[in-house]
C-alpha cells in the first residue's frame, strides 16, 4: 500500500499497463510534454516515447474515431479528453461507432478502448466546462461507464478498464485529483466493474452517491449519526454495469433511499436508480426513493451560484431527513 493522490493513482496505472502491454498507448490534447493539464500522463513521454504518448490536434471527433479504428485493429488505446464536456463534439464516434460496432458487426469485432478524463465543478470553469455528463453514456447500449470516487477505486477500476475488451467511458473528477488515499502496490490490483462499494454501513436510510458526492454523503452521514439517524452510503463505482443488487439489498434493510449525484437531477442516473430500486424493493419502501442532483439550470460561473446549484452536505442532510420523516 502507498498513499497516493487520485491523479497519481491514475498515472501509475497507465504507466504500469503501458509497460505490461505494448499495445496500450495514450493520446489526447497536451498529454505528452505537459503530462496532461492535470498531470495524469506525467512522465509517460519520457518513458515510452512520442509514438505511444501522442499529443493530438484539437480534433476530438477524429482522435476518438482514430481510437475506434486503432482498437478494431489490435491496439488498446487510452484517450484523454481534457474535459469530458468535450464528448459533445465527438458524440457520434462514441455513441454510434464505439458503442455499436461490435453488435452491428454481429459480434465479429472487438473494441478495447478507454476514453477518460475529468468533469464536474471545482475550478470555476462555468457552464461548458463543469458539467457531469455520465448519464448520456448509459442510455445507448455498448459502453461501460465508471466514475471512481477514491484513489484506490480510480486505480482499480482503471486497470480493469484498460484490460477490458469493450469501450469504456471513465469519468474522473477535477476536484478529486488532489485527494489522497491508500492504493495497493500490486501491479495487478483491479476492481471489477459492477460491484458497488459500501462506504459506510447504516440501518436507517441508504444514500447512493457517485464521484464527488460520495465524500459529501459521508460527511452528511457522520453529522446525522450524531442526531441518531444511521445512514448507509453506497458508491456504485460503475454506473454501467450497475450493481443494483447491492443497492436493493441495502434498501430492503433500511426501507429508504436517496440518490445523490452532481449531474442534473432531471434525467440523471438517479432517475434510473430510483425507478429500478422501486421496481425491485417496492414493498420494503417506507418512503419514495428521493433524488438530489444539480438544479435545472446551466452551471453558473459565480461560486455563490454554483454552490446553490449542486448538492451540498446540507442538502444531503435535508434530503435524508425528508425520507426519514424527521
Amino acid at each position, binding site marked *: 500500500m502507498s498513499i497516493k493522490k487520485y491523479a497519481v493513482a491514475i498515472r501509475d496505472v497507465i504507466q504500469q499497463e503501458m509497460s505490461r502491454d505494448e499495445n496500450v498507448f495514450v493520446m489526447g490534447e497536451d498529454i505528452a510534454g505537459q503530462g496532461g493539464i492535470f498531470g495524469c500522463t506525467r512522465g509517460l513521454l519520457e518513458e515510452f516515447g512520442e509514438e505511444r504518448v501522442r499529443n493530438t490536434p484539437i480534433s476530438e471527433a477524429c482522435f476518438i474515431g*482514430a481510437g*475506434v479504428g486503432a482498437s478494431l485493429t489490435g491496439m488498446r488505446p487510452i484517450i484523454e479528453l481534457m474535459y469530458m464536456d468535450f464528448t459533445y463534439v465527438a458524440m457520434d464516434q462514441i455513441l454510434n461507432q464505439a458503442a455499436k460496432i461490435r453488435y452491428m*458487426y454481429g459480434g465479429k469485432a472487438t473494441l478495447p478502448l478507454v476514453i477518460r478524463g475529468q468533469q464536474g465543478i471545482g475550478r470555476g470553469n462555468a457552464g461548458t466546462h463543469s458539467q457531469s455528463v455520465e448519464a448520456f453514456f448509459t442510455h445507448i447500449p455498448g459502453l461501460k461507464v465508471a466514475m471512481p470516487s477514491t484513489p484506490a477505486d480510480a486505480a482499480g477500476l482503471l486497470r480493469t478498464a484498460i484490460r477490458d475488451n469493450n469501450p469504456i467511458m471513465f469519468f474522473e473528477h477535477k476536484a478529486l485529483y488532489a485527494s489522497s488515499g491508500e492504493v495497493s502496490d500490486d501491479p495487478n490490483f483491479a476492481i471489477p466493474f459492477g460491484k458497488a462499494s459500501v462506504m459506510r454501513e447504516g440501518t436507517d436510510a441508504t444514500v447512493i452517491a457517485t464521484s464527488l458526492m460520495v465524500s459529501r454523503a459521508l460527511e452528511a452521514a457522520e453529522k446525522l449519526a450524531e442526531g441518531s439517524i444511521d445512514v448507509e452510503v453506497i458508491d456504485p463505482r460503475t454506473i454501467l454495469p450497475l450493481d443494483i443488487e447491492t443497492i436493493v439489498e441495502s434498501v430492503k434493510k433500511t426501507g429508504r433511499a436517496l440518490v445523490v449525484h452532481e449531474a442534473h437531477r432531471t434525467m440523471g442516473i438517479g432517475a434510473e436508480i430510483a425507478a429500478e430500486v422501486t421496481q425491485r424493493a417496492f414493498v420494503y419502501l417506507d418512503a419514495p426513493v428521493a433524488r438530489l442532483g444539480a438544479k435545472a439550470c446551466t452551471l453558473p460561473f459565480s461560486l455563490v451560484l454554483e454552490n446553490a446549484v449542486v448538492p451540498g452536505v446540507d442538502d444531503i442532510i435535508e434530503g435524508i431527513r425528508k425520507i426519514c420523516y424527521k
Partner: protein
Amino acid sequence: MDKKRLQSIYETMLTIRYFEDKALSLFEENQLRGSVHLCTGQEAVAATVCSHLRDEDYITSTHRGHGHCIAKGAEPDKAMAELMGKAAGYCQGRGGSMHIADVTKGNLGANAIVGAGLPIAAGAALSAKLRKTDQVAVAFFGDGASNEGVFHEALNLASVWKLPIIFVCENNQFGISTHVSKSTSVQDIAVRAKAYDIPGEVVDGNDVFSIDEAIKRAIKRAKAGEGPSLIECKTYRWYGHWIGDPQVYRTKEDVESWKKKCPIKRLETYFLENKIMTQQELTVMHNKAVEVIDAAADFAISSSDPDPAFVLDNVYCE
C-alpha cells in the same frame, strides 16, 4: 497493368454490377428492405483500388458500400444474406446494407454516418504505424462527405502524423439530391489536399487505368512513411441515391450520357481492341458472375432469419 490484375479488376466489377442488379430486383420483389444505396456505375473505383490491397490492409466504407465490400474480398452470398437481414449474413442480420463489415478481411465496415469512416481509417493506419507493419488503410467517401468536419480533422491528423492512409473520394456529383456545386466550395475536392500539405489528384473514376496509377503512387507514399494522399475519382451513380429515389434533381439524358461512360464497357473495349480477351471470353466471365450472384441470392433467400432469442448477444465482449 498486367493482364492478371486487369482481369481480376474486371471480374470484381462484374460481380459488383450483378450484385447491385440483384439487390435491386430483390428489393422490388419485397424480399429486401431498408435504405439500399447502389453503386452501379462507380464499380471501377472500388475494384481498382482494392486490387492493390491485401487482406491485411484496411478499408472503411460508406452507406454506398457493397462495391467496396465485394472488392475487399467479401463473399457475395454472405453479403447478400446481410442485405436481407439473415442469420448467415456477415453481421448476422444486425447490420444490414449500411453497416456491413468483415474485419477479418480488413473491411472495417460500411458506415451509415456520412464521414464517420475517415477517422476510423486514420486509426487503423495509426495502428499499422504503431505495430510497425507495412499495412495501409483506405478511406472511401463521397463528395458530400467532404463537407463534414471529420473529413478535415482526419486529413489533418493523418498528415501531421504521416499515417499510411489514402483518402479516396468518389465524387458522383450528388449528395442525395444536392449537386456538389451547391454544397461544396471547390470544383475539385482534390484541391483540399493543399489544406493538409499532401498530394491531391483528380482522376477519371470510370477509368481503371487512371485510378490504378493514382492508387499505386499513393500506396507507395504511404508505405514509405510519407503520409496520406487524397484521390478524387469523378464518377456517377446510375440509380437513385437509394432505391426509391424519385430523382427529381437530374435528367434522364444526364443519366444516359453517363451510362455511355460505363467503366465495365470501357474496359471491355480495351480488352477487345488490345486483343487481351475475346468477346467470347468476356461472355464467359459475365455468365460466371451472374451465376455467382444468382447462387448468392439463392443462398440468402433460403437462409433463415436470426433467432430473436439471441438478440441481446454481442452487445459486449465477455
